[in-house]
């Protein structure tokens, strides 16, 4: 069974059909990439899945249940975590605190127990911290953990955001252009990291511009153009697909 099933998903802005009847399945424990030229509707598609936007029509089924139109925090609670194309970290919080926020869906202390510092919350807080530290360690950013994220180098900020998403132990990880702004070396490291994350049994859906990264790590590629799906297949097939090469890969050669 697929972890994510998109069927007939559409969303327009004014007269523009940003996502137009898109269907595809993402298989569990696989890396599925969504590619396409600028304005193809990749980020809109992402926001429709994550709940930041409501679709006009179509359905999003995650892990067997319909999550179409759910608010972002409800989508997150179902086990979908995401990163953003433009990094969205809490700049006034330390890297560690940001990653601890990722444990929000895995913990439950609310306002009353927080205000009273109920003894059980201390145990929970300790485990939130330990899990966050473990994730930070996994991404190799331990040395930055007590720094406010606003002052960190861009590449490190990307890693912190990824750590925050991972800390929630998602079933599905949505990565929105994770390589944008990274140099070649950082992009290669990111590719290894993405493979490592899949190795932990997490399914990944990635929207990406960087072809080398997509071709390296993806198991399956979905190609969008003007909001429509024009091709789907293994990286090898996509590279051999005449239409894709013309509209997308060819464009980059030009």
């Amino acid at each position, binding site marked *: 069974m697929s972890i994510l099933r998109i069927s007939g998903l559409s969303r327009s802005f004014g007269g523009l059909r940003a996502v137009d009847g898109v269907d595809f399945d993402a298989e569990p424990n696989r890396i599925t990439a969504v590619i396409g030229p600028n304005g193809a509707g990749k980020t809109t598609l992402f926001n429709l899945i*994550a*709940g*930041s936007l409501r679709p006009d029509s179509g359905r999003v089924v995650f892990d067997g249940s319909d999550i179409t139109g759910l*608010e*972002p*925090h409800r989508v*997150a*609670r179902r086990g979908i*975590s*995401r990163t*953003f194309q433009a990094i*969205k*970290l*809490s*700049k*006034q*919080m*330390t890297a560690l*605190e*940001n990653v*601890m*926020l*990722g444990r*929000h*869906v895995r*913990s*439950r*202390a*609310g*306002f009353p*127990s*927080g*205000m*009273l*510092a109920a003894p059980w*919350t201390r145990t*929970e*807080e300790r485990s*939130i911290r330990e899990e966050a530290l473990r994730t930070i360690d996994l991404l190799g950013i331990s040395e930055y953990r007590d720094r*406010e994220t606003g002052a960190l180098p861009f590449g490190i900020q990307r890693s912190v955001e990824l750590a*925050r998403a991972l800390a*929630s132990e998602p079933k599905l990880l949505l990565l929105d252009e994770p390589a944008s702004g990274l140099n070649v070396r950082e992009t290669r490291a990111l590719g290894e990291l993405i493979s490592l994350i899949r190795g932990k049994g997490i399914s990944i859906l990635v929207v990406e511009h960087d072809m080398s990264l997509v071709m390296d790590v993806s198991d399956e590629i979905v190609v969008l153009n003007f909001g429509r799906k024009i091709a789907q297949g293994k990286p090898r097939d996509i590279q051999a697909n005449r239409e894709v090469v013309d509209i997308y890969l060819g464009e980059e050669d030009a």
Partner: protein
Amino acid sequence: MSGPNRYLPVLACALCAFLLPALLAATKTAYLLTQLTMSAYYVLASLGLCLLMGYAGQISLGQAGFFAIGGYASAFLSKANLSAFASGRIAGLLEHVGLLVRGADAYGNAILSISPWIAFICAVLLAAGIAALIGTPVLRLKGHYLAMATLGFGIIVERIVRGTKDLGSADGLSGVPSFPILPGLAVAGGKALRASNFTIAWLVLALGLLALVNLIGSRAGRALRALHDGEEAAGAMGVDTSRYKLNAFVIGAVYAAIAGALLTHYNGSIGPGEASFMKSVRYVAIVAVGGMANLSGTLVAGLFLNFLSLRGVFGRFDDAVFGTILVLVMLLAPSGKARGRAGSRPGLPVFRRRGDPGG
């Protein structure tokens, strides 16, 4: 804001609650206790706003409205004369369990009224209820729009209390009975009760501060700080941002209402001035000068400025001083960024300009 250090201001307040009366008595300045008691209640209202505005990033220009709701409701209920119902069986039963109390009015006539405890609890619940009711639609707004909406709320409260005869119109309510908290311990004015009331006020302040310090360091506090910087990211991490903002709003209102009710019982009166726009500006100015997301800063700034104001140091320019402070903070350190790392440093911020668009 980490480690046991964050509890130092709480400890300091609790110590002052017991030590200052003796110290001031020794230096023959015990008369200052009155203003210090009143300052503590005003600061309590500012602390509630600090959570909402400093940490959760939601501005409110209606904090004085909630302060007045707490004060007026508690005053009205504890003053209400229910003698007309005194013979009824229900009244007898309520009196028996202590919900109604017999007393005398200013002219010595016997009256039957609601226990101040019940009046106080009802007042706080009323403020919380109103906050929950208006918070739901209002907190969808952001920035200037939220400021305008809460400003409107504050003005509505002021016009209502000013225009309602049963609330004393422009004179407000006076002759508010004392509030016996424990046998032999009451929130009330009078020289004999000055020291004990100072202790009550500062202990309430310490408790209020303790709860917020706990909250900020907890899972919910982390979520509030995160939504301050970006609701989209906080939502994507599973934080129900509307609910969290509403909770912060209601907690802020409850702090203001507790402060308003206690100060009203202490003073024995409340007037519509407590609901005025300039009072709301004052709460905002104190949070701003304290460094926004900084409870200890709000505490110190609030105690200092309220004390000076109540001592009459600013004279006729009282409101102008707070207005000026607010303008200066907005110009020099709009988001309280001058504070130390994650609000760890107590005290007043050192103003420093930073290119930050947020306010």
